């Protein structure tokens, strides 16, 4: 039991011929039969799937290649990126304000922000999108006037103001604000109260404390879930297709409604969605590395774990 573990110099001192002989024996490699079996099965399944996709007379891969960089598709990709970036920006900016309101001493702000989050998390985002798109049915004109007089500062037809683009921004952005508010609030609460007290004792005002001490620390905790939200946003932006905004999905739908190559064009869209998600994932890693620079005590530990994992893999 202990003989194989003890270093050889101690074995000599033990003066047992058998243990010396055991220590000299080469180590047998473990067989890992289970791993081999599962790997073979997965490879077989993957091969079958690839064959089903490529060898299928109903799937024309040339069509996929032809439309991958089609101008209509590229325009859809551009619009999807624009919508994702702008909606997420609204979500982060508005979410920060909502989070601060929820943590404020002012009960009106707290209740207001709480109600907003409750409402927008409660209504499906698809319903919100359709609602904004059809706002003109309820309020045909959007106008700002001075109450009690007939003077109007401005007045505009709702259908002219709420274009599909604006409806998508409102629907996705306002919905995202509610989720980002909770993520940011969690990050702010994760900063120990001693940090705020230390900043206060140095004479910092609450706003200075937030900017210099609390937010920079909270951001680290906020980045991973925010990246997650951004990736989700990229994909739910496809909902814009129901209100005729020309995002990536709408663009491929326009094409396949004419040529009836539905699956090929959905594959084109999927390739773009996966590519964009990959870019976002790399962006997240880069951002985390940048923000984690000062957490130097953590980095060497991580590197050690990684090195050990690699080392373990190499030995096997």
């Amino acid at each position: 039991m202990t003989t194989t573990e003890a270093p050889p110099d101690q074995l000599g001192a033990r003066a047992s011929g058998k243990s010396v002989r055991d220590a000299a024996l080469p180590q047998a490699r473990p067989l890992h039969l289970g791993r081999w079996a599962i790997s073979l099965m997965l490879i077989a399944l993957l091969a079958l799937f690839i064959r089903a996709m490529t060898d299928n007379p109903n799937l024309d891969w040339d069509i996929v290649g032809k439309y991958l960089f089609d101008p209509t598709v590229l325009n859809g990709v551009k619009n999807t990126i624009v919508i994702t970036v702008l909606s997420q920006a609204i979500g982060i900016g508005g979410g920060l304000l909502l989070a601060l309101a929820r943590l404020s001493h002012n009960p009106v702000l707290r209740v207001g922000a709480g109600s907003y989050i409750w409402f927008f998390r409660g209504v499906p985002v698809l319903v919100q999108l359709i609602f904004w798109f059809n706002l003109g049915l309820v309020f045909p004109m959007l106008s700002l006037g001075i109450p009690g007089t007939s003077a109007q500062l401005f007045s505009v037809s709702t259908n002219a103001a709420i274009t599909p683009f604006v409806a998508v921004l409102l629907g996705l952005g306002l919905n995202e604000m509610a989720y980002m508010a909770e993520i940011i609030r969690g990050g702010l609460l994760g900063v120990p109260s001693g940090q705020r007290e230390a900043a206060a004792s140095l004479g910092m005002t609450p706003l200075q404390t937030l900017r210099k001490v609390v937010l920079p620390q909270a951001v680290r905790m906020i980045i991973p879930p925010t990246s997650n939200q951004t990736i989700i946003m990229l994909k739910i932006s496809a909902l814009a297709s129901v209100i005729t905004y020309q995002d990536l999905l709408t663009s491929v739908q326009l094409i396949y409604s004419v040529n009836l190559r539905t699956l090929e064009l959905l594959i084109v869209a999927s390739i773009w969605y996966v590519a964009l998600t990959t870019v976002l994932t790399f962006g997240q890693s880069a951002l985390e590395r940048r923000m984690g620079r000062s957490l130097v005590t953590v980095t060497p530990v991580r590197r050690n774990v990684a090195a050990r994992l690699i080392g373990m893999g190499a030995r096997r």
Partner: protein
Amino acid sequence: MTPKVEIIDLHKAFGSVEVLKGIDLEVHPREVVTLLGPSGSGKSTLLRCVNQLEKATNGLIYIDGVLQGRVEQRGKLHELGPHGVARQRLGTGMVFQQFNLFPHMTALENVVTSQRVVLGRSRSAADERAKAVLARVGLADRMSNYPGQLSGGQQQRVAIARALAMDPSLMLFDEPTSALDPELVGEVLAVIRELAHDGMTMIVVTHEIGFAREISDRVVFMDAGCIVESGPPQQVIGAPQESRTRAFLARHAAGDRAVPT
């Protein structure tokens, strides 16, 4: 002479628990006052009230003759807003048991940031001041380290430097060595001792009886939210009059370090 700090009938309750039950205390310029007492006696709360980290339930605190946390307007006392409170804290430095350094900044940035943000000092002026105070606490060679790379004793010395860089005329120490490994206590006490010799007005909450005896002009013994006994260290520590003080000192003399609160 105006007292540096004047505390009049201070009460503090957390919900129904009364932590301070009417504290009267004066601290004079250049005086070093140590607060001793068992855990839960209200020493830390008293210190935090002085710096307005806790709002007193009742009572008055004056620093340099200025009422803290409230302002008189048209014959009535009004609560001071957050900006007014921030301004009142300017002359007072505080050192915490858990150091509370900003982990995302180097030691130098920890000391520089508040000078820039609060006092509006230029980059070079703040840098120069920070380097001077860091050298004073013996950390000239650790300025570019992050708190996570420093020992507890070094972190606490950076925290002291950070407070000193704001040029306070009053320093509050809230159990500055209670979170430290025994072998690191000495280096922090040495810095505080030097400050005392330089004539800084200080209120120190500590469990280090020997240190309190050495640096204090006056020792205040607290128990259950009241001041039990107060006077020069040779009297309060050397010849305590009250039985509660004697019991506390006997426990500590037996090497029974109180659990830090």
